[in-house]
């Protein structure tokens, strides 16, 4: 804990040496990737303390710059009961630039293409450095139930959206649980 939030608590005057042994351990890292590392570590800590209902995320083995996330379809939407895996890849510019986020589980949705690319403004021009893994996943989760029909990546899904009953059948037909 101390290595992540070295100064949290009431002792801002502590010498930096108390910041743990982590710092000298990675002398080859640039300053930039070091600060990304710190931020991702504190996000991970927050998510492990409780991310929120229906979302979870964890770094891939030995690479904290690549995460796998899962979201579940919200209740009372056509995606209820389904679960989707996503990949998040962070650059050295994070959080000043958004991570690359893709669906790894096939998702029949107006704003998701067949390769899993997502069309969502906050992952592009509406990105803010105040967003994090948790809020990204929550945004994608709410995008599931509230698609933007006017600029679809999947036109078939966009056209079918008005017929929720048929849409649900299509979701069930195309759904492959992510554990496979």
């Amino acid at each position, binding site marked *: 804990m101390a290595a992540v939030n070295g*100064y949290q608590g*009431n002792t801002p005057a502590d010498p930096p040496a108390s910041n743990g042994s982590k710092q000298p351990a990675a002398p080859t890292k640039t*300053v930039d990737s070091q*600060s990304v590392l710190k931020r991702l570590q504190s996000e991970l800590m927050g998510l492990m303390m409780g991310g929120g209902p229906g979302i979870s995320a964890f770094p891939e083995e030995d690479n904290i710059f690549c995460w796998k996330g899962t979201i579940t379809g919200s209740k009372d939407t056509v995606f209820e009961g389904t679960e989707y895996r996503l990949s998040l890849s962070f650059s050295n510019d994070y959080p000043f630039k958004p991570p690359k986020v893709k669906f790894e589980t096939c998702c029949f949705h107006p704003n998701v293409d067949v390769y899993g690319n997502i069309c969502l403004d906050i992952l592009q021009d509406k990105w803010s450095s*105040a967003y994090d893994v948790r809020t990204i996943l929550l945004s994608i989760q709410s995008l599931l139930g509230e698609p933007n029909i006017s600029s679809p990546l999947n036109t078939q899904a966009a056209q079918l959206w008005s017929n929720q009953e048929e849409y649900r059948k299509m979701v069930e037909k195309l759904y492959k649980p992510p554990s496979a």
Partner: protein
Amino acid sequence: MKVKILQWHAVASWTWDAQDETCGICRMAFDGCCPDCKLPGDDCPLIWGACNHAFHLHCILKWVNSQTSQAHCPMCRREWQFKE
């Protein structure tokens, strides 16, 4: 009675006068410093925007400089302007 002080050892604590505890950009404590600095204090100050959101000066400068057009406050999306 006369008391003669031979030696004394003063201890003070300080804190930034911000409403939040952590910087919304780097997620580090305001009483700490931004991830690029080693020591908290005047070398890694806080700065307020016209919208009253506070950040580490170094963090908000990085954000403003990373934007190709007019920068917005990361918290409320208002046009970013440093508070007078």
